[in-house]
């Protein structure tokens, strides 16, 4: 019996009559790197929203970890504290803080009000931040304001924040958007190196990138799982081909 890090069963979510997620069942092993693809409006980001507590499902359960903690009853920061980190589709960093501070705020550790009042940056923490910044290639920019970074650099910074958090489950939404091919490849390598120690869900459009990183791919369509399997299996699946090529894209 394998341990699932994430179990979603019978999940439904409707926005003003639009079924964003319908009867979704999703299982993920510990340490797995899963790639989720699907056309626009397939419910990929909504799925991440439901996992991270940004929105609540109308029905269904989402359970996390060995204790099978029910995520739908928790709010964003409680879910984060369980060890679920998320990188957003558009890079979201603290624009008025320096790169250093951005990582510092994301470091694992106490999140309380009063501990924040008396917290000091320890040398160990400082060293860790430097390491992370080196990993994501922002060592030079350590004192720059995050708002002054280029789009790709913001992506990297957000990945760095994810690393600092040391989360058990990483949710990565379109990490390669706005990156050069070289950077994309580097992102792929980074994600691959993290897999195993961490469980990772990657949402991606770029099939080259998907090929690079994916072991198991889940295809979402109209809020439900169309098929799961290796990249080749998925790419040869007739229904997937129909969804991607045979019909017009659904816009939201």
């Amino acid at each position: 019996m394998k341990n699932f890090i994430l179990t979603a069963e019978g999940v439904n979510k409707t926005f003003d009559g639009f079924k964003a997620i319908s009867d979704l069942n999703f299982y993920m092993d510990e340490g797995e790197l899963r790639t989720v693809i699907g056309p626009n409006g397939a419910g990929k980001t909504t799925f991440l929203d439901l996992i991270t507590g940004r929105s609540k499902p109308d029905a269904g359960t989402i359970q996390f970890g060995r204790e099978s903690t029910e995520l739908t009853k928790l709010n964003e920061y409680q879910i984060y504290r369980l060890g679920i980190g998320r990188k957003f589709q558009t890079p979201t960093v603290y624009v008025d803080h320096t790169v250093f501070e951005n990582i510092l705020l994301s470091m694992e550790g106490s999140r309380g009000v009063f501990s924040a009042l008396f917290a000091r940056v320890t040398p160990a923490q400082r060293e860790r931040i430097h390491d992370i910044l080196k990993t994501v290639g922002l060592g030079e920019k350590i004192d720059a304001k995050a708002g002054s970074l280029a789009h790709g650099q913001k992506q990297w910074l957000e990945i760095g924040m994810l690393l600092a958090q040391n989360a058990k489950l990483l949710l990565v939404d379109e990490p390669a958007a706005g990156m050069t091919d070289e950077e994309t490849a580097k992102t792929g390598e980074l994600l691959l190196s993290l897999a195993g120690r961490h469980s990772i869900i990657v949402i991606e459009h770029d099939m080259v990138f998907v090929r690079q990183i994916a072991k198991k791919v889940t295809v979402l369509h109209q809020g439900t799982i169309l098929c799961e399997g290796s990249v080749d299996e998925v790419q040869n699946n007739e229904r997937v081909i129909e969804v991607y090529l045979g019909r017009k894209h659904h816009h939201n």
Partner: protein
Amino acid sequence: MCKGGGANLRSLFHATMLKTKLAALLLFCSFVCGAVASDETVTRQKLVQAILSSGDEQQKLLSELADDNSKIVHDTLLSWTRDEIYLCETANGGAKIPVLLEEQQDAEGKARAIRIDDGKYLADEKGAELHFDSSDLNTLDTDMRLRSAVQQTLDLLALADPNRDARRDVVQKLGKSQKKQYLPVLQARLGKETDAGVKKAIFVAVATINLGDADPSAKIAAINQLAKLNSIGSLDDLQRAANSQNADVAKSAEAAIKSINGYLSAVNFFGTIFRGISLGSILLVVALGLAITFGLMGIINMAHGEMIAIGAYTCYFVESVFGTGFTFRIVMPFSIGGHAPGFGATIPGLHASGWFYETYFLFAIPLSFVMAALAGLALERTVIQFLYRRPLESLLATWGVSLILQQCFRLVFGANNVQVNSPRWLLGNFTLNDVILGYNRLFVIAFAVLIVIGTWLLLTKTPLGLLIRAVMQNRNMAACMGVRTARVNMLTFAFGSGLAGLAGAFLSQIGNVGPSLGQSYIVDSFMTVVVGGVGNIVGCIYSALGIGTADQVLQQVFGSPVVGKITVLICIILFLQWKPSGLFAARSRSLEG
């Protein structure tokens, strides 16, 4: 510039009006005067006869006079009851002439005498008017029986008054007197009366008189009758009856009081609901504009209240122009060469009257919309368009504008409240089962319904509405599709401000207009928008009516407007705990897509 043009217009207008008036007057005189005059002579003759006769004949003549509803009869009989009719014996032989003395006295305290038989001054043979001292003349003799007969005639006259309110007042007065003698008069009137309200008043009056009966069973019958009639005005009388020695009377009186009190609280409740709905309608019109601008542009317009004031002052202005004219002068706070520069304008009044004056409000309504919309347009172009992505800053900047506008109102219209005279067709009210429904409030409700329907049509059925909704849903996409979003913003903002102006026009009919008029409504309308859910018109309607009614009901419950208002505020805060994004939250998927 204004002055010259206005003056021309005025004189032209004046001349026309004058001609029309004169013509109408002449026509009226030639048509009617003759007929009236002959009737009047007959009446006067009857009066003189009644005064000079005596005994049963006099009684008969008096009761005949009761059918003649003319002012002369009324005034003369009234003077009679006050002993102000004098008999003047002519020098040449015995004929007694009844006269009234004029109120105006000359230097010696004497006054001219008006003959009752022809309404002219009493004169001697040579035609010189005679002056009398009241003590020189003989007062007409009266006795108790005669007095009461005259009084009864007067009452009957009053009961036949063409104005139903006047009739009702007399009926109530007669009933309150609890004098049996009025019973036949009231019964007689009941046969002729057509108005339901007056009929009910007569029933109440008869029952009230019977309540004064010594016989307990008659009393109880009267009490039951009052209870059946739900007569709120009889509560005091019934209370007195409840204190009666007779146990049966007291018991039935208490039962009647209980039943009427139940009815009274129902009446109050519905009256409160009615006021609540009318307040809610105003809030609705104000909040609708706010909801549209906020929903569209994410901008809280703190100067929205001043748009209300612009609408209300436009009403005042139009009313002044139809009346005596409007003048203002602003003096600059510095002086050049010894005198302070300033500017001002005088817009002469039309001095309209009658139906024409009454129509001013019909001109004022669209104009208040236009003026507020123009102000909104200017505000959007000069300030708000630079602050679209900064909601908090726009809130602050519009507050700055609001301060400036308030002070401008003070400079132009004065710091004190001004009163806008309502057209007559908005005054008054009608009563539905004792619930008083003011015409002005009914008008507001009706108009709010029209505005909501109009707004809905505008948003759903017009090209502009389509653009507005497109920009509301996805600004960037709309811009990509070639929608000129800046233009849509501008028009929407103007429209929202115009709605506030309309609300101001209504408010001017309900209360006074002052520079800070808008301030007293702005917090409520913000609350309405927040509770309703931003950018949601249906939510806005529910929350406006809900807050308006809750406000009035809680005022009633706590007996204090302030405590009521505070309770509403607390309720709103608690409500937001339950539904943080309002009644009808538009779901946001801002992260996706």
